[in-house]
Each structure stands twice: as C-alpha cells, then as structure tokens.
C-alpha cells in the first residue's frame, strides 16, 4: 500500500497544539508546593497510568488548547463527537445491558433465547465453544473435553436450526462472537432466514469477524492473514449488497487489552485495525459512506478510571476526524464511533473474589462516563470459571444501579471540561497518532502484525506490568497487598459432559441423513472458488451449509487451499 503522510502531518499539528508549559503551576510549585514538600520530607511517588502517562499535581486551563471547546469537544451529537454520538445520549435511551453468555447445547441456548425474548429482549448475544471458534467439529479428537465449555457448540446447520427454533429472525438481532469461521456462521444464519422466508434485507445482526486482533491477541485463526482478510472482504461486499443490516465486523480492542496492552495501545491498535478495514472496503470498490456506518467497536474498561474515560472520548474524536479528513466521509453516521464495552477480565482476582464486584462497578462507571452504547459487566467469580447464576445477577444489577440510582446519566459527558480529563484525552490522542504514524511507515497494519511488531509492543507492556506487580510498585488488593491466608473457596459453575455426547450424536445423525453427493459437490465448488481470488465466497458458503456440510469440513477446504499460519516469535 502506498505510504500516506496523513498521520505524520496530523501528529505534528497535534504536538504543536498541546501546550508544553504551565506558568501558573510552576509559580505555585515554587511558592506553595516545594516549601510544603520540604517541610514534610515528601518523596516523589510514581503516578503513572498503564499508558505510561504521568499525572502532575493538578491541572488548569493552561494545560489544554485555548479553543478546545469549539474545536476538540464539539457538542453532543456533533462533530467530532468527543462528548457523545447522540444529541440526547442516556437521557433518550440507556445503553444496552448486553450480557454475553454461552450455554452448553443448542437446546439450552434456544430455551435461554426464548426466555430473553419473552422478557422483552430483542438483542440476542451468543457465545460459542472453543472447537466452534477454531472451526473443528464436536467429534474431532481435539474437541474432546471442550464441547459446550465456553459457549454453545455449532458443528453444522442443524445446530443453528435448533438454536433458532421458533424464533422469528425478522424480529430479533443476533450478535455472534465468532471470528475465524464468521463467514460460515453468517451463511448459516442466512440459510435459516431463507428457510423462514424472511427477506435478507430484514436480517439484522453482528459477527465479530475482526481477524487482525486474532493475530494480535486472541489467537483464534485458521488460515494465513491474507486468506481471512479476503473472506472478510467477501462478507463486506456481499452483505453491503444483500444483507444491509448485517454488521460484519466488530472491531475489538477488548482482547488486545486482555493480552496485556496499555489503554493507549488498545486505542491505537484497535483504531488502526478499523482503518485497515476501511481501506479494504474502499479497495474492493465500496464507497465509504455505504459501508463504514456498519463498522462498530468493542472496548475494554479497566480499573484506572480517568485513563479509560479519556481513551473512549479520544477514540470517538480520532475516528470522526480521520473518517472525515482522510477518507472524505460525507455522512455523519460514517463518522460515529459506536462501541460496546466489557469490564476488564484481567483486573479480576482469584483471591478475595467479592472484591471483584467493586472493581467491576468502577469499570462500568468509567464505560458509562465514556459514553458506551452497550455494556457487559463481568461477574465476580470469573477469574475462577464461567460465572454462576448468582454472580451474573449481581453483575447485571450493578449496571441497573448505575443507570437508575446514581444520576450520572442525567447529563451528557458530565466530566467534560475537567482540565485533567481534557488534558488526558489529548495525551491519549497523541499517543494513538504516534502509533498510526509508526504503523503507516512500516507498511500498514497487516505488515506490522505479520512482523510481530504489535504483538511485541503488547508483550513488553504486559511483562513490565507483571514485574511492577511482582515488586509491589503496582498494587492488586488481595494479590500483592492486604493478602489473606486460607481463603474459603467459592461455589463455581461446572459444565456437564452431556453437551458433548448430545452434540456427537446429533452430528452422526446429520452425516447419516444428508446427501453425500451434494456435500462433495458443494465442497468442491467452494474449493474452486477459494482458488480464484476474484470470486466472492459467500454464495458458496451458503450452498455448503445448506447441504449440511459440517463446520470442520468447510473449514478444512480452506486449510487445504490457504494453509495455516505460524505466528512470529516475539519473546
């Protein structure tokens, strides 16, 4: 890809904008602070956040550009959307309390979805088990012990039919957390909609499908990066034309953060992934205002309160600015950064698990003050296992208390205008552009990922943090400070083995009743299509799932054609 100096120019202008000196604070320091510190024998502490940004004693108007309010903040629902993407934000509609969950068998999931629909939910969210996420069937040897463990297992269209039995797909929108096999699951969803005779332009939902972050962080891929990116391109173009309400990518920083990055790295790498997908859409002939409004984001909310809020505000501003200036977006919807948030799993401790409720509450408040569109709050027992029902309920109630008791939803961006928060937002923004510039100079995000640069940056941060925890510089209550001996174990959820047996039996029935001729034909047509990079794979995937080819059979065609991928060495 040709080098574009946009980020480089942007970085220079940002650096010029952000004030470097603060006369008032210097005078105060001489007059008031130093005498105080000297007389009390104060030793300078380390007030650094995850992004390596050091906080000063206090902030004042000299720390932010004079025209911040008019040029950096804007108003709610107006460019650059720093204060929020909608004019009325939570006064109009609260964020969606979307609790992500997975249940052993398709039957269990179906019952759960129906229960949620009965109670007024229309936004369904489904987690899959590890074999499904990596494109293996339940009867593969590798799947043994993992079927239905972290979510529902889908080995063929039959499983999806059971999951959505009796559910009208024109009345719900379904979010599926799936990446490497996202196109196959999308094909299955489309196949069910076709069976229900629902026009495809009414089919609404989301797949995660953000493959770049898989190579960076979550490590769930099947093929080399180029092959997965081609499949994403096919989903983008197919859906833009045929399934316009399908969100085919949710660009995710969550996993990048959980892999050990700082907040600034999460911000920078997630948005860089986003820009990569924008380039991909444009390269495949789509107009930015036609497809980019379908892109949405997924961030982590961790424990350093102001750092997280600043990150979310900076994200909105950067996305709007780059979409407008670099990509020439005309439509406001193209510039809006819509995002889901999940509280941090990494900050949950195995020790003294009830403390996790407090951590999650603080993180959830940061997400709300950061202007999230939807939120998942973690349960206090999740450092141990999948959450128990009681723990999930507390997590959901946490959101309800924030929404309906605290009053922080009464006004939009209530922390906006705080000298400290605005300064911190500028700092986060600057660090993000530093990375964008570096990545652009390396030849773009795909190159940076293939070389392992991004992964190395994250691993270095992660290791540094672990060392800080080891030597007590960074406190984790109950882990390296305020420890307790002989903690009582908490009750945790166990998943039964029955899910696996049920799945294997169903798959055997599917294999014995389908037409092998159709299976072979559709798989060989898929193989031919995969070999031709100009062909759009989506119709072939739909054809294959309708012939009841299994997820693994379909995935294996790609494994044959594209091969696998060994990650770069980063340690």
């Amino acid at each position, binding site marked *: 890809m040709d080098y574009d100096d946009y980020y480089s120019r942007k970085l220079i202008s940002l650096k010029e904008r952000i004030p470097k000196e603060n006369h008032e604070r210097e005078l105060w320091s001489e007059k008031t602070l130093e005498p105080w510190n000297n007389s009390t024998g104060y030793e300078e502490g380390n007030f650094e956040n995850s992004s390596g940004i050091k906080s000063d004693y206090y902030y004042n108007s000299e720390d932010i550009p004079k025209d911040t309010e008019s040029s950096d903040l804007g108003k709610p629902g107006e460019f650059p959307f720093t204060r929020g993407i909608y004019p009325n934000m939570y006064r109009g509609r609260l964020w969606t309390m979307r609790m992500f969950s997975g249940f052993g068998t398709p039957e269990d999931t179906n019952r759960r979805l129906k229960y949620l629909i009965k109670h007024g939910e229309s936004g369904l969210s489904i987690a899959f088990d590890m074999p499904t996420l990596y494109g293996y069937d339940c009867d593969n040897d590798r*799947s043994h*012990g993992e079927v239905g463990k972290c979510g529902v297992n889908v080995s063929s269209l039959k499983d999806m039919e059971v999951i959505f039995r009796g559910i009208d797909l024109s009345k719900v929108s379904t979010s599926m957390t799936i990446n490497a096999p996202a196109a196959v699951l999308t094909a299955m969803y489309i196949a069910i909609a076709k069976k229900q005779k629902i026009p495809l332009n009414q089919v609404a939902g989301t797949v995660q499908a953000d493959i770049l972050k898989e190579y960076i962080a979550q490590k769930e891929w099947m093929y080399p990066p180029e092959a997965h990116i081609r499949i994403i391109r096919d989903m983008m173009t197919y859906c833009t034309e045929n399934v316009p309400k399908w969100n085919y990518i949710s660009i995710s920083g969550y996993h990048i953060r959980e892999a050990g990055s700082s907040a600034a790295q999460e911000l920078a790498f997630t948005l860089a992934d986003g820009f990569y997908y924008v380039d991909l859409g444009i390269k495949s002939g789509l107009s930015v205002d036609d497809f980019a409004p379908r892109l949405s984001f997924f961030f982590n909310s961790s424990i350093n309160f102001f750092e997280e809020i600043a990150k979310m505000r900076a994200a909105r501003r950067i996305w709007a600015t780059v979409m407008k200036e670099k990509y020439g977006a005309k439509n406001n919807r193209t510039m809006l950064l819509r995002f889901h948030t999940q509280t941090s799993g990494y900050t949950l401790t195995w020790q003294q698990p009830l403390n996790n409720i407090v951590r999650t509450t603080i993180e959830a408040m940061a997400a709300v003050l950061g202007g999230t569109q939807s939120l998942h709050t973690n349960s206090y027992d999740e450092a141990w296992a999948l959450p128990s029902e009681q723990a999930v309920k507390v997590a959901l109630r946490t959101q309800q208390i924030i929404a309906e008791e605290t009053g922080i939803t009464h006004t939009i961006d209530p922390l906006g205008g705080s000298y400290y928060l605005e300064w911190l937002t500028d700092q986060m923004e600057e660090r993000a552009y530093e990375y964008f510039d570096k990545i652009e100079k390396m030849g773009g995000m795909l190159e940076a990922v293939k070389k392992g640069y991004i992964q190395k940056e994250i691993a270095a941060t992660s290791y540094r943090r672990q060392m800080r925890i080891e030597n007590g510089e960074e406190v984790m209550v109950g882990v390296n400070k305020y420890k307790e001996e002989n903690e009582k174990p908490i009750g945790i959820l166990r998943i039964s083995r029955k899910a696996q047996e049920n799945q294997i039996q169903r798959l055997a029935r599917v294999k014995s009743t389908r037409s092998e001729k159709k299976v072979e034909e559709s798989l060989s047509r898929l193989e031919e299509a995969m070999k031709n990079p100009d062909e759009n794979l989506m119709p072939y995937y739909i054809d294959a799932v309708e012939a009841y080819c299994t997820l693994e059979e379909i995935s294996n065609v790609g494994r044959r054609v594209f091969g696998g991928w060994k990650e770069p060495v980063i340690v």
Partner: protein
Amino acid sequence: MSGGEYLADGKNQSLFKDKPIKILLAKPGIDGHDRGMFVLARAFRDAGMDVLYAGLLPTPEDVVDTAVNEDVDVIALSLLNGAHLTVFKKVMDLINKRKIDDIAVVGGGTIPDQDKPKLEKMGITGNYGPGTPLKVIIDHITERATEARSRKNRN
C-alpha cells in the same frame, strides 16, 4: 570464578552448571489465552532457563513429541478454558504409555482448588493460579527439573 557451595544432603547442584534447565511451555487443547504464557516465557528466560514454546493449539501428541525430541527437563502445561482435567490427562497418558520418567510435568491456569489433588495424582504438580508470585513458580520448576535431570543422568 565462584566459591564453593554447601549442598543439602543428596543434592547435586552441579547438574545445571553446563546445561541450563530446558522447559517446554505448552497450551494443549483449544485455547489461545497466551498472555500469561508469554510473561512466564520471559521470566523463565531471565531466570536462566532454556525456553521453548509449543505454539498455538498443539495436540497432546505434539507436546510429548516435542518434549522428547528436544530432550527437555520440564513440560509446563497451561489451560484457561476449563478443559485441564481432560487435556492434561491426555498428556500424562502419553508420557506413561511411552514410559518417560525423566521429564517433569507442571501445570497452571484457572484450576479450581478441588481439581488440584486430581492433577497431583496424575503426576502434574504446581497447578498455580493467577496471582502466584513468579518466584514460587520458578522455585517449583527448578526443584522438579532437578529431579528430572538426575533421572536423565542416571539413564
């Protein structure tokens, strides 16, 4: 040059003088949560060990084959997906089947306390959870590696 050292009864500390502890880090089973693994890899390397990583999604066979071919002292298994009882057992079954007694196996991850005795019984020790100080882990591995190495030297 270094001075002499007092040794505990029956311990031969010179075993590692020529060759550092060689350890294979592996996440068998279908689990890509590798952040902790990479932190450990670096910490073990900084502690002077020779560190190998089995890569993404190795099968139990891959893990044992690699351990034998590379002649490691220790296999360190980690899983955060709840499948440790099934998958760690597969690794141990292979080790027992091939009568390998000079490679120690340690475990870690999100392992509930109730499961630890079961793993110990299989011969998998440590089984440390999140928040365990690195020193505890390194000391344990050094101890197990010493046992394994003494059996290697005997063989």
